């Protein structure tokens, strides 16, 4: 399966650190998967202007086409002003309406305060549902205090990342099975 991890912020480091852990965990568990990590900080992504996603060029085209080609998407997002960052929302705006059809999507949130725990539920999940994602219900929420230097140093948080990674795989696997069964139910 094609797995893409998206670090959804163009500033800071905590979301990227979280996604590094998730990536390492995925590669250890499922070494034969094609895994890539996109850190929006490293790309010059344009603002969406409503055109078909195939009509963008350069970094923008690379980022959205990599996402479109994924079977599994792990989204990492910080919380800015009680919401997801503009850089991540812009990715959603760049993509077509049904972009996550037939994709399994998991969420990793980072935030400066546990007050933001429900941001993923109220703001991110509705967008993902609208775009037809198969959403893994549990998310990982990483508080700022869990970070030390360029790592997460809270065992509980690390364990939850491990759990979400394996859950996402099982979700994706059963979803693929569902898609296959549905496909086979048609006689053409």
């Amino acid at each position, binding site marked *: 399966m094609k797995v893409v991890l998206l670090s959804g912020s163009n500033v800071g480091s905590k979301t990227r650190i979280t996604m590094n852990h998730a990536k390492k965990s995925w590669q250890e568990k499922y070494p034969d998967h094609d895994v890539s990590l996109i850190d929006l900080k490293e790309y010059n992504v344009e603002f969406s*202007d409503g055109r*078909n996603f195939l009509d963008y060029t350069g970094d923008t085209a690379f980022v959205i086409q990599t996402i479109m080609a994924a079977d599994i998407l792990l989204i990492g997002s910080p919380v800015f002003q009680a919401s997801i960052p503009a850089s991540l929302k812009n990715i959603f705006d760049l993509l077509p309406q049904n*972009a996550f*059809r037939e994709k399994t999507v998991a969420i990793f949130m980072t935030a400066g305060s546990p007050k933001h725990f429900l941001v993923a539920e109220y703001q991110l999940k509705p967008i993902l549902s609208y775009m037809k994602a198969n959403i893994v219900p549990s998310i990982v929420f990483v508080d700022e205090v869990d970070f030390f230097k360029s790592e997460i140093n809270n065992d509980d948080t690390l364990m939850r990342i491990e759990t979400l990674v394996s859950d996402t795989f099982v979700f994706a696997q059963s979803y693929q099975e569902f898609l296959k069964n549905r496909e086979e139910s*048609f006689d053409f």
Partner: protein
Amino acid sequence: MENKNFVPTIDQTKGLEMGIYSLGDHIANPHTGKRISTQQRIQEFVEMAKLSEQAGLDVFVLGESHQDYFASQAHAVILSAIAQATEKIKISSGATIISTSDPVRVFENFSTVDLLSNGRVEVVAGRASRVGLFDLLGYDLRDYEELFEEKFELLLQINREEYVTWEGQFRKPLKNAHVIPRPLNGHLPIWRAVGGSPASSARAGKLGVPMYMAHLGGTASVFKRYIDIYREAASTYGFDTKKLPVSTAGFFYVAETSQQAMKEYYPHVNEGMKLTNGQGFPKQAFAQSQDKHSILNVGSPQQIIEKILYQHEMFDNQRYIAQLDFGGVPFENIMKNIEILGNTIMPAVKKYTKK
């Protein structure tokens, strides 16, 4: 209010007008993985028009597209070849992307093809669903809507007036400019293409121009809304909606049985959509074509007759055009489809839709 636009009169005593259209796509046949040459594909457009005429269809329509997997960039030139190769059938663009062309030039081209074809030409102007042509032809995508509206209105004005005085934002003013040649009947029928934007249907109605409505998938009732919006707007602005024709356009594929039709056509639509639009056509949505209420005209001849009649009853459209070559359909199947459409489906549909 008197409609100053030249609106085509469709003789409804002969029933629903029918034809075919191609977007000009040039895609490998997904069943074999083979793609014919660009030259062969362009020649296919001309052959399709000839076959459509032989099958008695009313109209052949070809669209303009400027990205990969298309071969109809110079659609007016191809339509000109079709004008020479045919004698009776109406020839139309569908759509001409007026936003990225000079309306004077578009009018000159199509008037010329009209004279060559002895007065058989129509123009359908659209806004483009893919937008690579803005960069290619030197326009700014930020002007997407304004470019279309301004240039479309200029095209309509040139069609009404031989000497044009005009001023706008996107080209130099015209001062009593003589735009020639004039078409055989003085004017060209000019339609507006609408692809699923209610605002665009409303604009077509406000201007009192006839509308082409493209439909990809979903139920017919979804598309009824666009037609209602169009007629409401037209009537609000004082136009007689009975005199404003509506044409519908969508996927079509006929085979002996519905299962054969779906089996043959699905890979074309699915792969074709992936390459031209970025995402495939969900099998589940395609399977719904077996329901009478679905807008996809895919199935056996009898099924399709019933669907077109059902759609006509709902839409009260004056023309229907079928897209039966999308996604690398091999030419022998295109031929078979045109033949069944012309010989079996059209007579039955016309019989029940005569007014």
